[in-house]
């Protein structure tokens, strides 16, 4: 069986759905961030697969590189913020951090 575009799309859609599922259900802030990483990487797979099978040149792969750098920056900032949360609350459970409620 030849591996084609649709195989990649199935993988990326599964990753995207898993990412959303993780963000919605997980309580630990670090796990939520991992869900976000899954979403970004699902998009990356799409970009690379489309650029390979669609003959769109190398644009898609260049975009994937941008996204990888951005994901790293975002993870760095997010983890720093989570560390701060840990210092103030002694836990990183996103459901219990709710001082700002009406």
């Amino acid at each position, binding site marked *: 069986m030849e591996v084609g575009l649709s195989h990649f799309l199935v993988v990326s859609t599964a990753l995207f759905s898993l990412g959303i599922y993780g963000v919605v259900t997980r309580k630990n802030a670090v796990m939520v961030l991992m869900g976000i990483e899954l*979403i*970004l990487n699902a*998009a990356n797979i*799409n970009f690379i697969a489309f*650029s390979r099978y669609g003959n769109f040149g190398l644009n898609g792969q260049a975009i994937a590189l941008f996204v990888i750098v951005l994901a790293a920056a*975002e993870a760095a900032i*997010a983890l720093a*913020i989570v560390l701060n949360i840990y210092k103030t609350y002694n836990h990183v459970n996103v459901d219990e951090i709710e*001082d700002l409620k009406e």
Partner: protein
Amino acid sequence: MDLNGLYESIALIKPEIVISLTLLAIVLFDLILSNSKKLLPFIAATGLAVTLVIQIIELSTTGYAFSPQNATLFYGMLSVDSFGAFFKVIILVSSLLIVYFSAVTDEIKQSFDRLGEYYTLIFGMILGMMFMTSAIDLILIYLSIELLSLSSYVLAGFTKIRQRNNEASLKYIIYGAVSSGMMLFGISLIYGMAGSTNLVELNNFIQSGSINLVTFSIALILIFAGFGFKISVAPFHFWTPDVYEGAPISITAFLSVASKAAGFAVLIRFIRVGFVSYVDSDGFWRLSEVFDWQALLVIISILTMTLGNFSALWQDNLKRMLAYSSIAHAGYMLLGLAVLSNQGAFAILVYFSFYLIMNIGAFFVVMLIANKLGSENIDDYNGLGLKSPFLGVALGLFLVSLTGLPPTAGFIGKLYLFIALVDAKMIIVAVIALLNTVVSLYYYIRVLKKMYLSNPTEDTPEIKTSAMNTIFILILAVPTLVFGLYFAPVVDFAKMCISFFGV
């Protein structure tokens, strides 16, 4: 490589270059002369003033920057035109105001040793916003939104004086990262279908037909999540009240004006460049029949303003109330886009220029009071208007203007919006917006009632405003009143600025 094209492109982005240079200057200054941090606001203000002057000189410059070579169509990464220039002016003016705002905010003063980082991040935000206003490539749109977001995530939790700062930035980054991730996934689907991330090519592709409409609509809704998060419309608004309440107040004011302006600019351009097949003689945009933008935008804007106004009714914290009020204002402005006409876009421009002064003004007065009281709770405002008449009158004026009552600038902004709606025969929508304005009257006037009709208690402070602060408030309050009566200059300026380049 074609260096001539590169030089021409660089000539088109002079304001952005000056902002980047100022950012570098601030970083270096903070590193080398770390003992004279007092000068940092002056460097920031100088950089912004220079950029503003350049931007005003370049107001009518048009052109595509960073065009690909050997392409069949003529396009670029950026489309520099007067529409983007208008929003850049709004962003720069509000940044200038925010630099002074930050310099007198107690919360920021207490983090004096980290002032260098503060201004660096502010300039990161400004740079992101400047690129957002003229980007016409989906990837550049995504990158500039992220540049704006990453800086603002940090700034939302900058002061760390209270627990709520941390919570604000955590909520902001989680909501922000998810919505921008969804946006990126949508962009990847568009790229797969159109073969390009450029909006001009996307428009070309849409008009050629042969689209899988289901996938295309899903991709567009995912992309809209990213824009919706930035302009905080329902159902992507959940972060707004928490972040606005938890962030330092100068950042709250900045987010509610400049970041929202950039979000609107990029959304308007996205629809205008990507989907409009032609503009008819009355200025209405005729969209390619692939996606019903009008229905989506009308539903979302009605939902947004209703939710914003009704949630604001029970807020006791003024910052939180202004957050919901800014959600409601995003709803009104989105109606201007939902009209899908030049008239509607023009109404948004007018609305934004007035929203800028009245919203920053309201936040500034709330900040001055919070500096004294240490809280923004409405119960502390008992009889405040009687003890500190100047602040009371100023806050009253800004709130009346936010409601949209004559003779203030807010009224003119709403008037043009309603004219655009009526012109497009969207009477029912206009009536709903009008009823919403009536609802909003309650929570704005409630503050006035507390300030003037309750008797002052012993705790009610008498707040003295320094000469500089008085001048700053007057700079914002006088236009709020004057533009309500004599608005021709702003309207003419906005009219001059609704031309889009290329399409």
